[in-house]
């Protein structure tokens, strides 16, 4: 029990392990990221059986287990289905740096898609200014600054109505 710890020296040794990775995007994700980078477009893929438009595009529909083949261009606009205001300085695992709290992020379903995408929201982190069901629009980096990953999306802006 913890009481036994009192007055006794217990050794523990700190250690930091840095592990580099390099992930292949694969055929479908590569097309998705290239369209985003080069043409500023979002593409999903439609299952030939269940007709769900899936984003990010993937080779097989998990539900029907058939190959997805029909590419569908999606809108930059969508609807907020969930959100949070984060008060913790969470480390961004893709950069190793913390996102500066507080910040708001959420899950947006782009028009024409059956899937959602999680990203930063360009809304003041104030609970009275965010609600589920808000209309949102993706804001991309300028073409010359885009690199071909999801950071090419800066954030989602609320569409004033």
């Amino acid at each position: 029990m913890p009481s036994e710890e009192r007055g006794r020296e217990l050794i523990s040794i700190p250690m930091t392990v840095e592990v580099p990775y390099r992930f292949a995007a694969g055929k479908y994700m590569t097309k998705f990221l290239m369209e985003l980078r080069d043409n500023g477009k979002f593409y999903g893929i439609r299952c030939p059986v269940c007709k769900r438009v899936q984003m990010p595009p993937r080779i097989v529909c998990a539900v029907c287990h058939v190959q997805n083949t029909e590419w569908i261009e999606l809108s930059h606009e969508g609807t907020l289905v969930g959100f949070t205001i984060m008060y913790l300085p969470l480390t961004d695992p893709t950069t190793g740096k913390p996102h500066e709290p507080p910040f708001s992020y959420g899950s947006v379903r782009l028009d024409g898609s059956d899937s959602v995408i999680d990203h930063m929201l360009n809304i003041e982190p104030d609970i009275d200014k965010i609600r589920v069901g808000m209309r949102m629009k993706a804001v991309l980096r300028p073409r010359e600054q885009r690199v071909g990953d999801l950071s090419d999306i800066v954030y989602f802006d609320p569409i004033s109505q």
Partner: protein
Amino acid sequence: MKRNVAIIGGGQTYHAARRHDVNQIEMVNEAVRAALADARMTIDEIDTVLVGNMEFFEGTHMTDCWLVDGTGAYGKPGLKITTGGTVGATIVCAGAHHVASGLFDKVLCIGFEKQEEGDTGAILSAVAHPLYGRSMAGAAVGYFAMMGTSYMAAWGAREEHSAMVAVKARQNARKNKYAHLKLDITVEDVLNSRMLAYPIRMLDMCPASNGACAMILTDEKTAVDRCRKPIWIRAMDTAHNEQFELDWRDVTTRKPIFSKVSAGRLYKRLGVEQPSEYFDVFEIYEPATWAELVWYEDLGLCRPGEGFMLIEEHKTEMDGPIPVNPSGGVLSTNCIGASAMLRVWEAALQIRGDAGEHQVPRDVRRALATAYGGTNWTVLTALSSKKDD
């Protein structure tokens, strides 16, 4: 199942944020010794050892080899299993399959986590797809926060409802001598606790615990010969979600979500029509308060959108008509690799009548345990005092 499978013993460590007094092997061995003592067995009698934890939380791979002294697996057949938060229940599931198949008669199952030794948030971020959404995947808290905003928007629940779940868990934990967070708190305390990620406050979230759980599963003959009150594993079911489709937090989704799919199959197999009446107690996997309300609905304890009413009406309290997590649950103790096994073990203790101060005040014949793996899959385990009912 091909052969009946019984739980004839189990044990757990006490759970705490700091366990500098033991290393991983020593901590695991505490649970193993407790389980063997409970089953009145020696390690020599065990046919095989299954062990698991959350991948890489403690920075060691091949934990099955590292921990072999403590687990008792030296020279025995055995496997390591790692399936995220579900892992403890997955080990029990695999153990039950090993017994049911006839391959082994006596299986030792072990789940553990020594969270303080690693960076839980950093490792959990690797649950997300590396190229899609990982930037936002800092920790589990964000996922449950979005579940909370979705839940409130869809069903009209308020933050007070999640706070009621937090209070129930910690008040129950005060009666569980092994629990980590034993807090005498009120709804006001929860609502006044520090906001982590709206609407999740400090007291809406599980702690990072160290601890281990071990269980011994056997065939029917061994159980009847050796055990005064064996607890029977009546049915198990598992289901996965689809990669990228984390719509489980969009509580209004009509898609077949893993939790509902799995519960539906398990109920059909057992002939369950009214789960809140069929089972006498539930031990569910709720790392955050909102997850408990969603589980109520996914398990069919109420209709969709009515989960918050169950907590408001005190139905799921220890002495209520549908007791949920009398142990204090994951909200009070989360040693991740052991958490899902603790659900099964606590459910078994309730049927045995050995839960001590947190024993629910009713005749417990059947119990259901759930698990969460990442945010995408579950293992359900249905237990009974009878092997055929």
